[in-house]
């Protein structure tokens, strides 16, 4: 799998969340994901970037075009050095929130993408990486 054009963007404010989803939209258009797939990826991005900001205390996003056997896709990862997630099963369950959210962000984002990877360590931080492939 080869990758090109990694771009790193900060996530330290509400405006950054908007900028990150617009950047992801740009990449998704570049590899010509369908409109529905663009919408799914950008929506997942919005959820994950907001989690990075709200629970991770801020962090960054990394966006790139990836290729696998001639197939193109977009990989986006969201990284923070916040408190980490103590109970992953709970965090990934539909409807569970430690705050006042609806608890749909993580579980919903996972359904909206093709690949979903969550790496977290209590006291160290959290990185969520997603990939959406062009069909």
């Amino acid at each position, binding site marked *: 799998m080869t990758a090109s054009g990694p771009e790193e963007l900060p996530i330290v404010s*509400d*405006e950054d*969340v*908007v900028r990150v*989803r*617009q950047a992801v*939209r740009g990449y998704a258009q570049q590899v010509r994901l369908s*409109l*529905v797939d*663009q*919408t*799914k990826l*950008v*929506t997942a991005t*919005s*959820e994950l970037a*907001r989690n990075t900001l709200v629970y991770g205390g801020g962090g960054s996003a990394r966006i790139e075009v990836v290729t696998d056997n001639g197939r193109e896709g977009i990989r986006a990862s969201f990284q923070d050095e916040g408190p980490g997630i103590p109970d992953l099963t709970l965090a990934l369950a*539909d409807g569970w929130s430690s705050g006042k*959210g*609806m608890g*749909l*962000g993580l*579980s*919903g*984002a996972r*359904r*909206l993408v093709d690949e979903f990877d969550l790496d977290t360590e209590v006291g160290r931080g959290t990185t969520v990486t997603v990939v959406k492939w062009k069909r």
Partner: protein
Amino acid sequence: MERVPILKIGGVLLVSIQIDLHDQSVLALQEDLAERISATGAHGVVIDISAVEIVDSFIGRMFATIASISRLFDADTVVVGMRPAVAITLVELGLTLGGVRTALDLERGMRILRVLGQESGRIPAGDPTGLEWS
């Protein structure tokens, strides 16, 4: 911070979302709307999202919140113009928008509000369009 304008058309408040909303603007819109409903005594609120490219859990929750606030002021809320790609994504995200009324377009949304307003007597008889009422 960019604020979303709220227009008044007869007894209806129209909110047309034309920008990529960040979370603070969403909260500001909820507050502005509560103010305007209470100040105008509007019987309906239309939220036009035909220009909105994504609805995530935060924006989805805003619709439900606005509908609840409106109800406290005896007003109905209709969300209109959802794009097909947004609708498909919402379902997969798992967001149900429970209790929020939706319509295909602005015209149908206004018609629903008119019927609801007339049925409940909030639009006086003799004002068939509901537009003169204010």
